[in-house]
């Protein structure tokens, strides 16, 4: 098979004395959608942040598209990456946050154009055209000049997705993208994500939307206390969990 988009082997991460990740191993192939499930504090979000170089891992190996995350290998020694290299790699990975994190002082269109112009040096006019296209794609073509505070939660999250897509990422990370939304707004965000998956985007989604996972995900992993407890096709993990902890968790979520 081709190079996996994400390959984790025994990834460890510690915050002070607290071991958050205790040896995560998993693999995501290009074009696949992986859903991550697990109780809060299990390390799902931390793992996503590691993939995007927002956290540094302490042991194990983590690579994106065949390149190590955060380090460079020379012979058998690892060297920490400089900021310029880290930044370049981050730009290729889109991330969507639970709390949207839109830039409140910029309009929807400015939010989407900011990174292409600043990071990639795309001419402003071209970035605006592309930004308007992307906002139209997430169903917000009519709200280009709205500030985030004038948008509903669902609309804000869709702008955030468009903002991430503007960098043409090869991988999208979703950190509980619908957890901060009113129930009636969840659907519109999931629709956009469904569209992305259908277009062949490689995605890792931390979410408790079991229905979405069942429908869209190629694999599903259940993480608890910093370890992958169970993984497999969503149908199997959801309907016939092998482990007691998975079963206990699912009985509360379903």
């Amino acid at each position, binding site marked *: 098979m081709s190079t996996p988009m994400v390959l984790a082997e025994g990834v460890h991460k510690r915050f002070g004395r607290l071991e958050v990740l205790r040896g995560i191993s998993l693999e995501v192939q290009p074009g696949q959608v992986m859903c991550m499930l697990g109780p809060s504090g299990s390390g799902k979000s931390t793992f996503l942040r590691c993939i995007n170089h927002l956290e540094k891992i302490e042991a194990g190996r983590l690579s994106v598209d065949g390149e190590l995350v955060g380090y460079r290998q020379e012979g058998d020694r690892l060297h920490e990456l400089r900021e310029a290299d880290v930044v370049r790699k981050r730009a290729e990975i889109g991330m969507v946050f639970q709390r949207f994190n839109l830039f409140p002082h910029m309009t929807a269109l400015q939010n989407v154009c900011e990174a292409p112009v600043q990071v990639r040096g795309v001419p402003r006019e071209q970035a605006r055209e592309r930004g308007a296209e992307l906002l139209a794609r997430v169903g917000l073509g009519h709200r280009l000049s709205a500030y985030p505070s004038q948008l509903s939660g669902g609309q804000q999250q869709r702008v955030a997705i468009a903002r*991430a897509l503007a960098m043409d990422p090869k991988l999208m990370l979703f950190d509980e993208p619908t957890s901060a939304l009113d129930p009636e707004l969840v659907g519109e965000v999931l629709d956009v994500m469904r569209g992305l998956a259908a277009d062949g985007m490689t995605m890792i989604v931390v979410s408790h939307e079991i229905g979405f996972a069942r429908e869209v995900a190629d694999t599903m992993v259940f993480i608890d206390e910093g370890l992958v407890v169970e993984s497999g096709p969503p149908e199997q993990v959801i309907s016939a969990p092998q482990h007691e902890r998975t079963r206990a968790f699912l009985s509360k979520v379903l």
Partner: protein
Amino acid sequence: MSDVAAEPAPQQRPDDIKAVPVKHPLRWVMAVLVAVLAADAVWSAASNPRFQWGIFGDFFFDSRIFHGLQITLELTVLAMAIGILLGIVLAVMRLSPNPLISGGASFYVWIFRGTPVLVQILLWNYIGALYPEISLGVPFGGPDLVSVSANSLITPFVAGMLALGLNEGAYMAEIVRAGILSVDEGQGEASQALGMTRLQTMRRIVLPQAMRVIVPPTGNETISMLKTSSLVSVIALADLTYSAQLIYSTNYKTIQLLLVISVWYLIFTTILSVGQYYLERRFGRGSMRGQALTPLQRLRLTVFPRHEGGGAL
């Protein structure tokens, strides 16, 4: 309509409530009391011949006072410009992960915030005693590339500007730092996740949002600077205060001249306050759903109420 049974029928709108407003008798008593006291104060100032209001009028537009006013305003603008730029640099330095950089910034703030600004003004003025020649060259006494005499470079104006500006930098650093820390961490995370560098994140995302917290105390600092700049009178720099002192040292109309400059200071602090108000509105963009009307807009609506609602006769 009738086939959609679940649609709630629009209800008849009841009449507007016409309630009797709560009465505030105490407010009226207070208003009368305040009016009487104010009138008495005005009468006492106007009728007291020792105020010599004629002299106040003579000197209010005196050219020496105007020149002093100009120096005061120049000093305030330049010192604040130095202070704000320095403050931003120091604040960013202070938040740097490099201990040498953050330590340097802390040291600067410690020195310049820890000594009286009056002393700093005097020290800058006498810098020539320590370094008669100010030169750019090889360190540890090597050959000079450029050299100027301190007394020609550090004029009283430059000394005052440097002292006030460098001192202000230390205070602004704390204000800017508080502003930066007030911005949600998720903002930095989001922009870093998009591939922006720390510097781009700071300049494009964090600082513009920090402005909302930075502007009000900065306006305060500017108003304070306008008045603190009067300290340069100790180095015989003819600002507004020193110009008045020069005049009253010859004609002994001390009180009148002090009143003249007090009114001038008041006029400019008022202008600055108005400027601050509009600046705060500008940086509040996007943070509120709709902004409250400015006093001017409210006044216009009171005078020309027809504009509201665009209306029915």
